[in-house]
């Protein structure tokens, strides 16, 4: 069993796609998005720990990219619109502080 905590994500909207029809994809990343300004119960600063960038690509072609800042709420939620003209592989990739990096893929088969 790995020691590092598992990265949790929710990805909705990759089923029931239609060729050429824009469809909304909604994603959530489990991430504390600590802005480095909060204090714990002992008065110590909780160190900054942010997810800073997200990219969604379809077979390597960019769908949407987002630069995330401390103003993004914890467990960052993003929704965006995809247009797929045929089957392919969607990649969802996040980067952040402390070497954070997570990538997932979903195969899509628009009708």
């Amino acid at each position, binding site marked *: 069993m790995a020691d590092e905590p598992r990265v949790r994500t929710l990805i909705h909207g990759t089923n029931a796609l239609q060729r050429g029809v824009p469809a909304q994809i909604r994603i*959530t990343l*489990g991430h*504390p998005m600590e802005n480095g300004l909060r204090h714990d119960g002992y008065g110590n600063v909780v160190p900054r720990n942010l997810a800073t960038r997200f990219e969604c690509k379809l077979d390597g072609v960019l769908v949407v990219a987002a630069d995330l800042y401390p103003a993004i709420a914890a467990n960052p939620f993003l929704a965006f619109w995809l247009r797929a003209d045929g089957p392919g592989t969607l990649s969802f990739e996040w980067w952040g502080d402390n070497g954070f990096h997570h990538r997932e893929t979903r195969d899509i088969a628009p009708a």
Partner: protein
Amino acid sequence: MTAARVLVAVLASGVVAAAGAQPQPRRSGLDFMSPALQALQRDDAQNPAMLWVQDGALLWRTPAGATGQRCADCHGDAAVTMRGVAARYPAWDAAAGQALSLAGRINRCRQRHQQAPPLAAEHADLLALGSYLGLQSRGQPLAPPADDRLAPLRAQGQQLWQQRLGQLNLACAQCHDQHAGQRLGGAVIPQAHATGYPIYRLEWQGLGSLQRRLRSCMTGVRAEPFAPDAPEWLALEAWLAVRAAGMAVETPAVRP
């Protein structure tokens, strides 16, 4: 059991509700939230608590403890076998010889059948399983069992609910029964029905238990919170279940 029959049975079992104390009609904390936050709770594609529910579904199928048993090995598909279960807790556990919350029951199962250690109240795995099982009762009426053995615990919970606490010398009932719907600072005081636990609380930016919420209430009135393993937490939870009997389970809820 219908909500009305539950209420009658519970009252007949010896719990006396203080006359005129409860706000009527009973309204969930959901009602006191802005439309945007209500939408957040209602949409599974947006509710951050679903991260924990997803984990709970995974844990349900994951071997645990010395026996390597999975929850699913005994209980099968939770969507079928656990339907309505969370709505009936806290409940009397014959083998334990005491009342248990759902979290307590999960821990008992872990120890007894998986030979796995019990998990602390705010442990991510326990919250995940609790939210996953709670989801299987979502939409169903809270149905505290008509069980005389729970009467002393519920009475203790009701007494705690009405007891002034802390430097602010406030009882839960004063805010949440008498002044529910009025404003404290910028926020509306909810009726405080525990129908959606574990909740995703925006202030925590994470999922937490009823005990955690009650602890912060006690801190809020400048009272020293009960010890983590104190019986008072279960007593309050048992009383709150009676108080909200018949209201729909909302787990996993979103709250400010």
